[in-house]
């Protein structure tokens, strides 16, 4: 493995490199039934202090991309077959596993969906939090424990000192998720990836956890990638959105603009399918059909079998990401039509 490149000095007048810059990433899985192309040329970026929401259904490749960025993909059967992942100026894919490990947890961290199964059931919460310091900062057991209690306080867990010796199953769902947040924050990373952090929680608890995350992000000026399929959560928290489908990004836009005027039929379909109070008595608008199996992605535009606007060219030509405006892109041949329509 090559030596990690030092971050290139930025000439005066140019912007510093983005915190995270994923370029044209391709990930495949070799399964018994064939090759599943989970990520097909995904590119996105996040700046410090910015929140990027990655939206998509199950099977869209959003989690796989995140795991590739973190470096925790199961390497057989998974394989990164192309692209680059630049973090703080370094290409992560060019680093040795040991170098990547040092970055993981310390400079970039991840929060998972189900805190009960994501925390080790037989180790105390204090131990699992303290581990970060023991491994990355060579802290002693006492120091690590003290830090763990501090962290638990920071994420507003009551009676932290006493509860640090408790086990994950002794906490409520919301508190467990906060512990996961604490674990991610422990070493003050520059980037946090939250993979559906609130999906398994009640709505009220959801709001609390998201608020906590937002507060901490502001405090530490971290980049946050929020992976979700819930459009409601996104509206409050994100700065920009990337919509994924069948392993590709089909639209990116700043939050307000996406909700106001989507430039891709899939996004449009997602927004239309949200039940609204003034729709009482009418049928819900769902998108017809199901997402394709990643073992056999339709040719041309991968959305064409379900698209209300599909034309013959959609079956044959895969749409590139057309430039729609500042900070906006859409992978639809007919994005203009969509934007012009009421």
């Amino acid at each position, binding site marked *: 493995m090559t030596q990690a490149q030092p971050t290139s000095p930025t000439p005066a007048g140019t912007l510093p490199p983005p915190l995270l810059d994923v370029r044209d990433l391709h990930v495949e899985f070799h399964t018994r039934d064939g090759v599943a192309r989970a990520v097909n040329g995904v590119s996105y970026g996040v700046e410090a202090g910015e929140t990027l929401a990655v939206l998509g259904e199950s099977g869209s490749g959003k989690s796989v991309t995140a795991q590739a960025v*973190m470096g*925790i993909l199961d390497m057989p059967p998974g394989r990164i077959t192309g692209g680059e992942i630049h973090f703080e100026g370094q290409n992560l894919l060019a680093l040795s596993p040991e170098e990547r*490990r*040092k*970055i*993981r*947890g*310390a400079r970039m*961290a*991840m929060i*998972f969906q*189900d805190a009960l*199964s*994501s*925390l*080790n*059931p*037989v*180790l*105390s919460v204090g131990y699992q939090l303290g*581990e*970060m310091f023991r*491994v*990355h900062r060579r802290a002693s057991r006492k120091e690590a424990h003290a830090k763990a209690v501090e962290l638990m306080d920071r994420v507003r867990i009551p009676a932290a000192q006493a509860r640090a010796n408790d*086990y994950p*199953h*002794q906490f409520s769902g919301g508190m467990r998720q906060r512990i*996961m947040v604490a*674990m991610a924050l422990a070493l003050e990373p520059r980037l946090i990836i939250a993979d559906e952090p609130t999906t398994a929680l009640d709505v009220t608890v959801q709001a609390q956890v998201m608020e906590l995350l937002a507060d901490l992000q502001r405090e530490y000026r971290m980049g946050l990638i929020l992976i979700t399929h819930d459009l409601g959560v996104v509206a409050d928290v994100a700065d920009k959105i990337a919509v994924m489908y069948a392993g590709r990004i089909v639209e990116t836009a700043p939050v307000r603009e996406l909700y106001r005027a989507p430039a891709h039929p899939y996004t449009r379909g997602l927004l239309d399918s949200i039940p609204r109070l003034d729709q009482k008595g009418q049928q819900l608008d769902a998108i017809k059909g199901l997402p394709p199996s990643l073992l056999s992605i339709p040719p041309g535009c991968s959305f064409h079998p379900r698209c209300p606007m599909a034309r013959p060219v959609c079956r044959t030509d895969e749409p590139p990401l057309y430039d729609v405006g500042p900070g906006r892109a859409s992978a639809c041949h007919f994005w203009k039509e969509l934007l012009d329509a009421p």
Partner: protein
Amino acid sequence: MPVGRYVIRRLLQMIPVFIGTTFLIFVMVYAVGDPVNAMFGDRAPDPATAAQLRAEFNLDKPVWQQYLLYMGHIFTGDFGNAFNGQPVTELMGTAFPITLRLAVIAIVFEVIVGIVLGVVTGLRRGRPVDSSVLMLTLVVISVPTFVTGTLAQYLLGVKWGWIQPAVSPEAPADELILPGLVLALLSLAYVTRLTRTSIAENSRADYVRTALAKGLPRSRVTVRHLLRNSLIPVVTFLGTDVGNLMAGALVTERIFNIQGVGFQLWQGIVRQNSPTVVGFVTILVIVFLLANLFVDLLYAVLDPRIRYA
């Protein structure tokens, strides 16, 4: 203190089980068979003598009463007399340490080799190491202990003369190594497979993914996170394994002429001596129940979720 409460609860649960099990044994022996007839072997008993013996052994009373009388005796340490006139307790006293030595050797071997093999194959599923070990465990499980024991005794004891084919009456530990290995084989195969499955399952668990995402080195993840969780079912298995070991000890002691509990029990059966049989089996059952209790406690120590259930 939750752990203490758990212990008490388990102990209390054990009591009805103990009563039920010993009663079951008692019923099997005294209600199904006729010990007095058995004592006479092939000869038909003289009715008067038979009636006298029956009265002496309380055999004319209803079964449950006999049981209570027997239990009463047991609690005063009176298990009756064996075929050679010796009190059963004395026979047990000489036989028990021998079997204990044998069992300890078997358990140490089974646990160490079994877990190591299980971890190695669990982490390398599908590779050649895994397939060959898996095949080996299958073969070991399929060949009954009495076959491996007989073959081992013959090859190593007689043909190649590496060891003494029969163990001397005092049964020192070094002579018990081969029999201990033979005894351990079956359980070892099970431990390996169980550990392997447990490790393979747990390595795909979410908390392992989290541990990796925290940037912990693989070694730490394997030892502190994976192993601790994976060994829980193995520990539970070791409790029931004590039963397997008892059965295996019967066979092994017979083959190698080890004068342990199994051997004496078998003598008792051959000579149709009910006090020996019932006495030894009762004690073995107690040992089995205690072993399971111990394992349950260990389980509670390892898995905090149980403690607070």
